[in-house]
């Protein structure tokens, strides 16, 4: 059927043209260029200096020019990115998760080998280095690696030489897709990474820099693969700084609700990233403004302004901006209800905030019950019910008095409609506030006498 095939090809050409146009509109040419060029230069100079240290003493004048160049390049990168992570993985080199070209010269490609002598896989620079610090770094690397714990020994040596802003990372290998499933995914590690990335992102934005959404997206994708209902995630979410824990809680809950709504994976990823960044507007408001009602009113708009620093046009960025701008808008806002993602964030945010603000005085079940009551006025009614359905009668963290007189905390969201009121629990010692090591499944045995605040 030649005409149909021709149509196929015409449509394909048109669709490819649009896709390429979209992709071009989505790139941040300037930032990418700077990161890649700077990363390549940094990797080459570091590698060159380490090689030179084998033939020259640290005080040799031959180090002057490359040390000065390293100071300059690093200064530019720190200014641009904040903390600079230079990581080698097998024969590849990454700068803050952006792969830099290591094929052109021997330098960057051999960096991994140079670092590996001290069991080091990467360098994290928290601040620029002056010439003396660069020499101290090179001199420390030139020392014979310690027999045991060479990386820790080198880190100690750096500290003794006054180089405290350089952190040594372990050696890395590529992680294959599906490896997590085969080896057993580690939700705790993933959640902790999410917390760390959220803290770093907030830090970056507070310093007026641009946040890199790619690592955030990767960790959200990983959490989605693990499943946002997995209890370990909910049990780890409090391990971060308060704002990061809050953001991660909002993200977990938003993902749980979003998945139940039936959003596709791309939208869920966008929702998760938006949730991790939703309060960044506070990062640049003056402290006196940020506190209280004015901060509450201004931080969504301010958040959008900060997120606009990231260049490039793409659906993810649009959804992120939309959700951040909307996350404090009521369902019955006079100017119209917020976007779907904004509605989800609004629910997750308020639920999490109630628990944070009224910690110990309002139980998660009561917080959810209040939100459910306000559905229609403040919250999208269907979404509020979805949230009830996914969190259950005893949402994670609820203090329970069990039928047998023991106390426990619920640690899981709803696993099925049948277990709506039968979460997984850990027995709780009211005196020591310790939780049992083992989880119990109320669907298998036991019952709840009452839910309590606290």
């Amino acid at each position, binding site marked *: 059927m030649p005409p149909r095939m021709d149509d196929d090809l015409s449509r394909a050409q048109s669709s490819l043209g649009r896709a390429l146009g979209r992709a071009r*509109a*989505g790139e941040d040419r300037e930032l990418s260029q700077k990161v890649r060029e700077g990363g390549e230069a940094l990797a080459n100079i570091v590698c060159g200096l380490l090689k030179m240290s084998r033939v020259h003493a640290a005080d040799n004048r031959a180090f002057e020019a490359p040390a000065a160049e390293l100071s300059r390049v690093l200064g530019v990168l720190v200014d641009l990115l904040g903390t600079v992570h230079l990581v080698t993985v097998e024969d590849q080199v990454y700068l803050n998760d952006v792969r830099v070209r290591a094929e052109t010269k021997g330098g960057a490609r051999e960096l991994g080998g140079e670092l590996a002598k001290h069991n080091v896989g990467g360098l994290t620079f928290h601040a620029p280095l002056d010439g003396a610090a660069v020499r101290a770094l090179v001199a420390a690397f030139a020392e014979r690696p310690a027999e045991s714990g060479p990386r820790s020994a080198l880190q100690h040596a750096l500290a003794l030489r006054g180089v405290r802003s350089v952190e040594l990372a372990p050696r890395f290998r*590529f992680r*294959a897709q599906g490896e997590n499933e085969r080896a057993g995914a580690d939700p705790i590690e993933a959640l902790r990474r999410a917390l760390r990335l959220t803290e770093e992102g907030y830090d970056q934005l507070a310093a007026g820099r641009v946040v890199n959404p790619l690592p955030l997206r990767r960790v959200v994708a990983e959490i989605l693969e693990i499943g946002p209902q997995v209890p370990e995630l909910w049990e780890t979410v409090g391990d971060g*700084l308060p704002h990061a824990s809050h953001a991660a809680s909002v993200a977990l809950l938003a993902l749980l609700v979003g998945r139940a709504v039936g959003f596709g994976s791309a939208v869920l990823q966008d929702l998760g990233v938006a949730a991790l960044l939703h309060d960044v507007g506070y990062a640049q408001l003056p402290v006196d403004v940020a506190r209280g009602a004015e901060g509450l009113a201004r931080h969504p708009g301010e958040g959008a302004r900060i997120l606009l620093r990231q260049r490039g046009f793409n659906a993810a960025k649009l959804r992120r901006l939309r959700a951040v701008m909307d996350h404090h808008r009521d369902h019955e806002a006079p100017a119209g209800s917020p976007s779907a993602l904004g509605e989800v964030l609004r629910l997750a945010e308020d639920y999490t905030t109630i628990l944070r603000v009224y910690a110990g005085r309002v139980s998660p079940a009561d917080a959810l019950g209040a939100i459910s*009551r306000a559905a229609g006025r403040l919250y999208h009614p269907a979404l509020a019910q979805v949230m009830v359905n996914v969190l259950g009668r005893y949402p994670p963290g609820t203090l329970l008095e069990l039928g047998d007189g023991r106390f426990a905390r619920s640690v899981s969201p709803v696993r099925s409609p049948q277990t709506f009121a039968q979460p997984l629990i850990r027995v709780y010692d009211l005196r020591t506030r310790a939780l049992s090591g083992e989880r119990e499944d109320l669907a298998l045995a036991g019952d709840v006498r009452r839910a309590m605040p606290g």
Partner: protein
Amino acid sequence: MDPPAPLPPLPAPASAAPAVAGERGAGTPQAQAAAGVLLALSRAARSFVLYDPSNAVVRQLLGEYRDRSRAALDRHGALAFEVRPFEMACAGEVVYRELDREKSLAFRLFRDGVRRLTILPVVGWEELLQLLQILAIRYTGVRQQEEDTVTLLRKAEFRGITLEAVEGFTPAEESPEPELDEKAQRAQRAQPPAGWDTPLQKLPQPGPLAWRAVPDAELAPLRAQSSEDEAALADLALSVARDLLAEATRSAWPVPNPDLTAFFSELRDGLLAEGNLLSVRRLLDLIREQGGGELRDTVLRGLGDARTLDLVLAAVPEDAAQLPAEMVPFLPLLGIDAALDRLLPDAGTSDARRRLLLRIVLARLPREADAVLARLPTFEPRLVRELARAVVARAPERASDVARQLLAQRDPSLRLEGLAALDGATGVVPLRPVCELLSDPDLPLRVRAAELLGKHGDASVLEVLRAALSTGRELPPEVAEALGRAMAQVAPIVAGRFFGAWLEPKGRFLRGLSAEQRTQQWAAVAGTGELPGAEAEKSLQGLAERSEGELRRHCLSTLVRRRKGAGHAAPHG
């Protein structure tokens, strides 16, 4: 659409990589078919580096990729490729090898973390196309910040293509060394103020919690809002744009705001990538509706773009002399530089299109006067004249700038146009370039320059005018007249003294007049005609009576002119 270009030669795997079992060298029929698919895929993906997606070559390569894939899958079933740094293998046989990093499909896939790629027989054309799209983006060197190949491939949620990819990296140590004190690092982190996200809204007493099925009809509209389809994306983009502008106005974001301007440019690019003029129009309307003065103007100014111009031109008949009414709102988005580019002599633009483009450019005045002035010397004289007149008419305060540009042109008619522009200029007229024209080889130009100096000059140019009459050569009478009049206009008293000496030079009866003296005398007659007072009249009358021929006629006609009041200084009484 681009004209069909000749097909690029087929890369020869055997010659590029002698050791390869390529399409021709592969052993089994399955390996040969697999090699053909990869070859077609890599050629199609690379074609976007060289050609516009609408090009006939791209079309042909797409067809080849589709047909080869379909045939191979129908005949051999699933094709599983192991991805290595420079080669790909199928069922243990190397079926693709390319050592050139720029060209190698294997290298790009491997570098981006893909380690195994399987195409299943159930794959449809849409999915094959999506795979090609992801690879084509990588080949064209687009550096995406939000996505990488692996996230793109995952997001695609293929049903007929499976992948194994590395995703990030993980510590490689079996016995990890102790990590740094994370708490110490965290203590340095920025944090929001205590009590952020408060005060909370007053909430009702908790209600009972019960599981209730939510009808899909209530959730479907929410999913539709976040759909990836073009219309939903455009709606989302425009709603974000509207609210950002509102927020920027409400919260008085600093203006200019490069981030906001960049966002709107990117938004325009994104909408144009879809070829969707309607959405661009909606964007334009919402910017205009915002008010916000400077902010709105800054945003609009940043949106002028060649692609919008091309899209608009494509929607207008070739012979249209003006923009249809429905296209007029796009005027601010039509890149002025792009329009000017297309007006260049060698741009190959048809006459009809040139007329339309000229109208577009003129419609952007006076706002875009700078852009027009910067390019003025590059156009044909006729167009330069038209543009210059338009700038002067719509931005009179730029007349001096127009004149400066024109006076530097080689074409005398343009220099003349420059003087005309200066004549209409407001404010201080630059006199130096006009003075320089007094020695121009072009006669009308010299006359006009002298007239202009007379009209706009002051005593500072008297010496220049006098020097122009003292070159030792005889000047054409109209030049001399203009110079004489100008002298009288800029400095009548001093000029009168010169004229006295020039009208009746010493020794004229003994030696006759030199060429210079004849010129000066001619100029003095014309200049005296401009001087006020009866003395000037008397002087001209006396000279007329004492002379004959041309000089007598010149004196008499000057007197007539003077009496008609044509000069600056009509006789008193």
